[in-house]
């Protein structure tokens, strides 16, 4: 008599899990992920990948100097167009800026700055906002009153104007921009997280933990924070795009990352006049990078929101 082995239904479960994984991959926003992956890789490997220094001008040849300045020796050739345009070359494939610096190399290093600033700024904002939201939602009473009134007031501040104000107080600088982003965006997390915690704190597992005499800090750490992480992740991915825009705007306005460091926003700001002179590549390339990064981060955020929300996911 044939015996049915224990766990005979297992071969059925395995394809189901595989199918689910496949569905997740199939529905994943591949283009944004690839763009973000490429930008992240470029940011990490910029010192290796960049063909030239980010700050030093590209040393011109004798012929180039003669052609541009009618002198055999010159420190740099400014405003060289991209390789496909007349006067361009593969040595500086995306051209050079007003100081003869390689645009491609500066874009690569600019990715580093934009990502560092946006990710760390949003991370700090998330950490501060999540902690305050959890405290307000779980502790209730005057904790809730104080934290939420401050949050409400904070939310009324226009983010870019507030960022400019903070920047003028703190002064320009990469880590100051990070701090500014954290100070501007924490309130968005605290409001959303508090709402989530108000529901979670009434659930059985939290009540049981309280009945068993588990301390409040432990409950927050073990039960509440893990349960709000979905919301935090979605907010995080959506805020990264906004942070990139704010960083670029601050740098564009001269209160962000100080020159000569290459930030995309700053690169655009420094070449405003060049657009009038037809040197479009100095504006278009950094502008395109900002657009791609923000768009990808937003699409990823949207996808995460759907994936992590059971109601939306099953629709």
């Amino acid at each position, binding site marked *: 008599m044939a015996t049915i082995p224990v766990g005979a239904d297992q071969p059925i479960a395995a394809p189901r899990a595989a199918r689910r994984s496949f569905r997740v991959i199939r529905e994943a926003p591949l283009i944004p992920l690839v763009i973000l992956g490429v930008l992240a890789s470029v940011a990490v490997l910029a010192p290796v990948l960049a063909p030239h220094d980010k700050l030093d001008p590209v040393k011109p040849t004798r012929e180039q100097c003669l052609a541009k300045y009618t002198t055999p020796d010159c420190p740099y050739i400014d405003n060289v167009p991209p390789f496909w345009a007349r006067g361009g070359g593969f040595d500086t494939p995306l051209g050079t800026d007003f100081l003869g610096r390689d645009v491609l190399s500066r874009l690569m290093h600019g990715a580093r700055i934009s990502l560092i600033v946006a990710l760390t700024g949003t991370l700090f904002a998330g950490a501060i906002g999540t902690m305050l939201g959890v405290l307000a939602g779980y502790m209730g009473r005057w904790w809730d009153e104080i934290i939420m009134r401050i949050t409400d007031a904070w939310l009324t501040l226009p983010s870019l104007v507030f960022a400019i104000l903070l920047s003028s107080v703190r002064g320009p600088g990469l880590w100051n921009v990070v701090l500014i982003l954290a100070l501007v965006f924490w309130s968005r997390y605290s409001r959303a997280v508090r709402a989530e915690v108000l529901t979670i704190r009434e659930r059985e597992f939290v009540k049981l933990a309280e009945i068993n005499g588990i301390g409040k800090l432990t409950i927050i750490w073990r039960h509440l924070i893990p349960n709000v992480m979905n919301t935090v992740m979605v907010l995080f991915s959506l805020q990264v795009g906004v942070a990139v825009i704010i960083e670029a705007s601050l740098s564009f306005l001269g209160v962000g990352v*100080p*020159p000569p460091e290459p930030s995309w926003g700053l690169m655009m700001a420094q070449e405003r006049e060049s657009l009038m002179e037809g040197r479009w590549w100095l504006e278009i390339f950094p502008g395109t990078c900002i657009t791609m990064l923000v768009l990808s981060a937003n699409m990823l955020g949207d996808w995460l929101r759907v994936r992590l929300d059971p109601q939306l996911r099953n629709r």
Partner: protein
Amino acid sequence: MLKKSFAILSVLTLTCGVAWGQGVPSTSKPILSGPLAKLDIKDAQIEAGRGAPKGTLNIGLHFGIDPGWFDPLGYHGPAMHFYYLVHDALIKPMPQGEFTYSLAERAEMTADFRRAAFRLRPGLKFQDGRPLTTADVKWTYENYRGLNFKYLQDKVENIQVVDDRTIVFHFKGPFVDFLDLYSGSGSGIGWIVPRHYYEQVGKDGFKARPMGAGPFKFVSQEAGVQASFEAWDQYWRRAPGVKTINVRGIKDLAARMAGLETGELDLAYGMTGKLLQRVMADPKLRWDPNFTAPWHLVFPGYNEPSSPFHDKRVRQAVSLAINRQFLVKQETQGIGKPWGNWISHENRDALRGDGTELPVPPYDPTKAKQLLAEAGFPNGFDFDWYVPFVPYFDMAERILNDLRAVGMRSKLQMLDAPAYMAQTSKGRKGFPGNRTIVQRIDPRPGGAKELIRLYAVCGGPASYICEPKIESLWAKHEASIDVAERDRLSKDIQRAIVEGYYLVPVYLNPFVHAVTQKVLPEGEAVHHYWDTVNAPFPWPWEVWEVKG
């Protein structure tokens, strides 16, 4: 060039050669008794009976507007642009000469420089119709709190109001430089503020709605952005040519250029940089090179031993690292002039920095690196900030790039104009730490000694330099009433500053202004607007005319 000839002709020969007040017309009756110093003050050009003002002149200023600039009692450099609109001074720089009579019809100083006297023109009024009298002159002097105020007020023993039109300043000792500081260029103290109105509206009220005796009435302002002025046709010298002047603070060069091209602006400042070529090539625009003063670098706190700039070799390396010739080509299309002094040659008793009196600093990056190595920086060093003059950020980055090439690395601190002006007006105290380079320029009419007094002596209100050798020369200068000796000492100080690399001159700046076809007169005759010696802006405003 007309400006140059004025600089030479308008030398104020405060010699002890004595002019006795004899045989003067009745309107110029002497005020003071005894021997008088000979003053070279030009007569005002009064043009009565001109037609009604017409048209609007839209000006694009290259930085934001600080409402504080409307109040002469708290003087700041760029404020002169607005003083010439709303206010008036007893004597002020005009196209006729560096010292030209304005509200005063006569000025005298005794030969020992212990007394100065002025007689106002008859029938002067403020824009609200109230008479302008010597009481306002006295009150303005006593209530001035801007640049040099302590120095100016400490020098005075008392101010005697003889009558509504006559005033005498009695000094504690010889005050040879009085007219330099009182002439409307060295400080705000010479610009007469209406006492009754100032006391009525208060300091903040006055900044919000200034009023004076100048050719244009203040109409409105949007703080930092724009200010509007309307012609006051009862101005004593002449009715203004244009009816309305709008001044807009536009930091962005591209926006100013666009404003000129679209006709939103009729006059724009600071057109050097990336778009100068476009300005030069545009047949619809006319431009004036408007040479002002030399750009220079200062090292706040250099005399503290912990500063890398404490070592003269490092400061010299800064100078050697700058490729002035290339910089001039990139920034000014070659019209700027590499320069070896930090004071304009149009200032009296200034040494020329074009190689005739002071050498043009050479470009030698190899020697710069060698000097840095000798000073203990074989791999160069990082310094905190390079602070550029607003809004010349591209030029600053070019200079920073030159410094980087020899190993001096830093980043730009881009301030807004009011913040930059406020910080630099404090001198060394405006910049914490001692690892900063500040890029400066100060175009102001007058003697070179006024710039030395401001920036290069220990007690200067905006002092960046404090050196025993310079102090000793300056003490001799201050003690002397011999004009020739003072000039010699002033030049010795300039030489000591440049040779000690306490300030590093860069190039003589063409502060290019551009006008559209709307501005009259047509053609090249338009350059007469820039005839005032060493003036950064094309005042006086009452002479401007536009097509209606």
